[in-house]
């Protein structure tokens, strides 16, 4: 029997350990997804093991409906729901700084506080507050930097962005350590070997295609025998929309820094096209996910996980909406208000990145790499 190096025996951990013990003696779900294949490599389950398995779970739901021991059976096995609760706990346990962990338990409050702070910061950054005469402040339409000077914007977002990256990085490291098997010399760096055939490459493919939301060839379930592609497609819209927006910002930064081309850019320019397409993805995707999740069988997701999803989706949607409105109406006189509003959302979004649903992508990717690495052994 292996010792549990860092026993965090919450209810969700204990329930997960019970469920994996039952599942490991049954194994009927083995072909559904990697969770059960990774489970079979183990005889007992430490708190780190179940945290790993929980983050490997994509909540596709198949195993609940296939389970002969699902509630109201006395074994009460509901792996998707139990793991969804454990995932939230694992996010909180890895949070940096540790005193921020309660943010995962009150996601709406966290979001509201972040929004208020973001609004205050962007208002303070806006030149209107320093220069009394608004007409002097806005000589040209669509000139965002006349509202918030470029250096102020770069400094503000530089600080917030750096903070988010550091917090996510430390959280990631803590998570990796918590799921590492003390008996296997697991390399602490997960980024060893990047080739397409390497575990990292394979895991990247798994993540980018959401392979395990349709691991059995059909899509994940919304309810018993109801397999639909919408959840996967909406997630793709969200994820790739986010990537395009990120690409848009990066290209714009290159334009500015390298070529000295200063915003605003034409509607046909690369940053605007990338941002517009990505922004539309971030409207469609989060709205779709919200609707899909609302119609999904509540037996599949724990309430703590569900309450983490909604504010994150709302933030993505509103950040994108304000951005697209700003783009469309940038010639109008009320552009400064739109800009300040959009910046408030973007700031709040970045600040809450390490304390909300966003981390699932990072931790799941880590679990996928670990799974691919174990499979190679």
């Amino acid at each position, binding site marked *: 029997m292996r010792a549990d190096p860092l026993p965090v025996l919450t209810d969700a951990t204990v329930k997960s350990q019970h469920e994996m013990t*039952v599942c490991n003696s*049954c194994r*009927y779900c083995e*072909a559904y997804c990697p969770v059960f294949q990774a489970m079979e490599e183990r005889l007992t389950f430490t708190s780190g093991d179940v945290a790993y398995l929980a983050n490997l779970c994509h909540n596709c739901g198949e195993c609940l*409906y296939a389970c*002969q021991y699902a509630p109201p059976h006395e*074994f009460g096995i509901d792996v998707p729901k139990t793991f969804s609760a454990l995932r939230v706990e694992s996010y909180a346990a890895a949070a940096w700084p540790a005193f921020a962990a309660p943010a995962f338990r009150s996601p709406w409050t966290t979001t509201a506080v972040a929004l208020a702070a973001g609004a205050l910061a962007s208002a303070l950054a806006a030149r209107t507050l320093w220069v009394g005469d608004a007409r002097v402040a806005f000589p040209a339409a669509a000139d965002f930097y006349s509202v918030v000077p470029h250096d102020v914007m770069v400094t503000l977002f530089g600080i917030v962005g750096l903070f988010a990256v550091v917090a996510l990085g430390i959280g990631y490291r803590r998570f990796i350590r918590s799921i590492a098997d003390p008996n296997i010399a697991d390399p602490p760096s997960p980024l060893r070997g990047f080739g397409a055939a390497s575990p990292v490459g394979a895991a990247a493919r798994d993540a980018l295609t959401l392979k395990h939301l349709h691991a059995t060839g059909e899509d994940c379930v919304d309810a018993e025998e109801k397999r639909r592609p919408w959840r996967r497609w909406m997630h793709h819209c969200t994820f790739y929309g986010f990537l395009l927006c990120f690409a848009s910002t990066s290209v714009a930064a290159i334009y500015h820094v390298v070529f000295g081309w200063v915003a605003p850019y034409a509607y046909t320019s690369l940053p605007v096209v990338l941002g517009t397409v990505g922004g539309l993805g971030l409207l469609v995707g989060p709205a779709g996910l919200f609707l899909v999740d609302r119609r999904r069988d509540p037996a599949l997701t724990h309430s703590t996980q569900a309450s983490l999803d909604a504010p994150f989706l709302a933030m993505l949607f509103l950040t994108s909406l304000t951005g697209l409105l700003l783009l469309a109406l940038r010639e109008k006189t009320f552009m400064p208000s739109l800009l300040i509003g959009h910046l408030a959302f973007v700031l709040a979004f970045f600040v809450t990145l390490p304390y909300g649903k966003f981390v699932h992508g990072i931790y799941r990717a880590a679990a996928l790499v670990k799974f691919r690495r174990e499979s190679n052994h």
Partner: protein
Amino acid sequence: MAPPEVYEVAVLGGGNAALCAALAASERGARVIVLERAPRVFRGGNSRHTRNLRCMHTAPTDILTESYSEDEFMTDLLRVTGGATNETLARIVVRASADAPGRMRRFGVRLQPSLRGTLHLGRTNAFFLGGGKALMNSYYAAAERRGVHVVYDADVIGLQIHDGRFESATVRINGREQQVRARSVVLAAGGFESNLEWLKEIWGDAADNFLIRGTPYNTGTVLKLMLDAGAEPVGDPTQCHAVAIDARAPKFDGGIVTRLDCVSLGIVVNKHGDRFYDEGEDFWPKRYAIWGRLVAQQPDQIAYSIIDAKAVGRFMPSVFPPIAAASIRELAALIHVPAGTLAATVERFNGAVRPGIFNHEALDDCRTDGLVPNKTHWAQRLDTPPFWAYPLRPGITFTYLGVKVDERARVALRGGPAANIFAAGEIMAGNILGKGYVAGVGMTIGTVFGEIAGREAWRGVSSDASASHTGHRAR
């Protein structure tokens, strides 16, 4: 429930055979009602706990390796039943099993290659993706799409049969008695393994200590009603398929996870601390079925499998934790077995172990000499703490008593075959499986005879209708 109406086919039961019958009848156009005794969450009878079905095939498929010929399947059936089989019916099952995977897939069932650790079944058995409950979900969804009327919590308490013809069934639904009328009926309500009174009639008080591995809803009500109505019985009424399972399993519905795979790795003692049978006689998958009866014959129907640290990791993990101790005497205290006797048993056993090369994959040469009974394979000294014990009790899987049928699945009454009464699944499996068992054959019988029963039930109705020009046609 809808207002009283006459169905063309009523199916009594809600497991694999029942749904195969309902789908076979409804795809030909019959109006079908399924009366499932369990609530929706526990629907599907013992099929909920299954995971594969045995099927012949002449070439490798996407889910089955090599080939498994009709003759080989028949040989396996004859071997496990010791000839207690109706060879005509058995051959029908074997031949039709070849088409079963394709047919199942048409109804949305998903299949997969054999599970890891069950590679020995990869050639003979097609596995249901996710197991038997997933299979039943697919069948129920297919039945709903086809307009089959499924009623849950429907307890059949009476059958109205006159001159060999079924007329209606009395059904208690949510405490209210109703008559369900149908032109034909398929009996697919399983055996009586969860009827504790019935078990006690046969095995006496020992039955109090039996665990039922499957559904609590197989009380044999329909079987008994049919036997009382003059159906010819088949199969030994005093036999059941019983395996040794973990004594801590729930009384009902423990299913697969209550099995224990470590018997052949150690010794098994009764409550007095004495060994009583050769634990290493053969591979465990070939022997687990006899251990149910062996444990049932021990005082208080309890036994303990005892292993030492050398065995850990060599068997499928159990759902229940081992009872562990640093010495045999401490272990004896934990399991309430006389410590002196158990220590003496282990000492005698250790002294009798002959040198050999341990190999759990083969019938190795590790055996004891001079013991009664000897352990003939995989005998290793119990000398490495911690020592583990798992308590064992008999776990009943199914009963053999059923109703006799012909090749059209018609139930044999004393005056000849019933006109419109058909049977499928465990309630008639005794025709083919008079005794013994081979993995996955119960599901094959249910799938094949479910289809035959549904088809024949509809054929009788449709030919009646055209003969009498009543004009009652299905959609």
